[in-house]
């Protein structure tokens, strides 16, 4: 996070946009070792642009992006962007990412063993030979996570990993990411899902064209920050110390049944 000397990536007063239209302005943030950061904001806030800056697929129009030398990162795209009609099995999808080194089409014995071990660890070993479209939403997300992890990245970047999945799958994915972080992988993800993130992520960045607030969710999730980020009034309730967000105008106390207020 900001001010970390061992930062993997540092954005210093960065601005970026498309066709002269500035989407992000004056962004300063830093990603360190074992960070788990959620970037939240409404559609069009610049979340994906921020990911592109981190991934290096987009250059800033102003400011500097500094990466630690030899940083190896991996990217998990939004599931909505995947071509589900493409003829590809789970194993093929994961092996495809092993583009460095070996040139031959078929995986080596060591590659096969590494892929099998990873798929088992992510609980998708039993669907290894299935087509991607035949899997559940959670399994599909895990396949693309496996494709990223097989390259042993230092930094994992995920675009909306909890979009379109049920609450149980969302919980599983975030639990899995927390486990990866404990193993030393830094993680940055984007999301619309404020409540899910607050419970699982130690660091949030609220974005709307610029950084509105960043830090511990318990500190930065406030009605003022939410209104500046989303442009709508929201109430924040604390449940077991975790901030829960409800839209203003609803009867908050009756909406959060059993909440410790």
């Amino acid at each position: 996070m900001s001010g970390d000397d061992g930062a993997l990536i540092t954005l210093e007063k960065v601005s970026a946009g498309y066709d002269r239209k500035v989407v992000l302005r004056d962004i300063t943030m830093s990603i360190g070792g074992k960070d788990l950061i959620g970037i939240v904001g409404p559609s069009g806030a610049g979340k994906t642009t921020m990911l592109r800056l981190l991934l290096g697929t987009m250059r800033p129009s102003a400011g500097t992006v500094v990466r630690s030398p030899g940083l190896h990162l991996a990217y998990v795209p939004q599931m909505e962007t995947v071509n589900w009609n493409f003829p590809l099995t789970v194993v093929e999808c994961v092996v495809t990412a092993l583009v460095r080194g070996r040139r031959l089409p078929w995986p080596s014995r060591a590659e096969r063993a590494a892929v099998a071990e990873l798929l088992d660890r992510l609980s998708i070993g039993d669907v290894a030979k299935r087509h991607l479209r035949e899997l559940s939403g959670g399994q599909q997300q895990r396949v693309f996570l496996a494709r990223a992890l097989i390259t042993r990245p230092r930094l994992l970047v995920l675009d909306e990993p909890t979009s379109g999945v049920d609450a149980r799958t969302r919980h599983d994915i975030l639990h899995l990411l927390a486990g990866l972080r404990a193993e030393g992988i830094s993680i940055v993800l984007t999301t619309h899902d404020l409540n899910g993130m607050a419970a699982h992520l130690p660091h949030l960045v609220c974005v709307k064209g610029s950084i509105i607030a960043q830090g511990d969710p318990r500190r930065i999730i406030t009605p003022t920050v939410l209104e500046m980020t989303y442009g709508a009034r929201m109430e924040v309730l604390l449940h077991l110390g975790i901030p829960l967000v409800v839209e203003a105008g609803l009867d908050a106390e009756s909406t959060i049944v059993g909440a410790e207020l």
Partner: protein
Amino acid sequence: MNGLVDPLVYPLQFDFFQKGLLVATLSGALLGLTGVYITLRGMSYIGHGLSHSIFGGFAASQLISAQYYLWGAGLWGVMSALTIIGVTRRHRIGADAAIGVVTTASFALGVALLTHFGTSGPSFESALFGSILGISQTQIVMLVAVAVLTSAVVFLRYRALLFATFDPDVAEVSGVNVLVTDAVLMVVLSLSILATLNIIGVTLVAAMLVIPPVVARMLSDSFVKTLTLSTVIGAVCGLVGMYASYLAEVPSGTMIVLIGAVAFVAAMAVANRRHRARVGAVAAAPR
């Protein structure tokens, strides 16, 4: 038994048929292999477009040198293919629209140049209709060379080509130079079309780039199986189509496309049957 074998063996005594069988089979396999990457990128129309573009290149390059027109046409095709990639990447238009604009303009330019400055020669006609039975030794050598080159590219760049075709954005982040990979694919595609165009003709090139991959896709959910099946189906269509052409006394290009169409209908029936069986199995599964 002889009644079955004779029609297969008898035509092989003719030199023209042996050569025709070889080039039809090899052309089918080559286009079937290349076509997988093209159809999966949603660029099925590029076969039709580039063959017209190269046709324009034939026309234009004859103005400079009748001897080296093949090189001119090849260069014209490669430039057209690279222009399509460049336009698609830099501007917000789809690949289909870029193909439509670049290849028709390229074709029109070649024809305009020829009409104004020169005259149409025999190679111009064969570029349009193909001449599978009158194929020269040079054309066979060129076809074999392009087939070997294409196989080598697919073999040695298999993972990069697959990654860049399936998920170019993530491939770029993962260390694949997508621009170079796309350019290599376009060069190989242009050479494949060039090597087969004046053997089997514009229509057949376009058909054989699309039909075998689509048939293979309907029969398999795995990429490596689709790639292998498409190559084999292309080769079989070429081989069976040549025999059917000889036996039915119908032009070879026509029969090869018709065999491909039959394979497509059969694959559709198999795919439908599989789908029904899968739906039935899900419905019958205990809950």
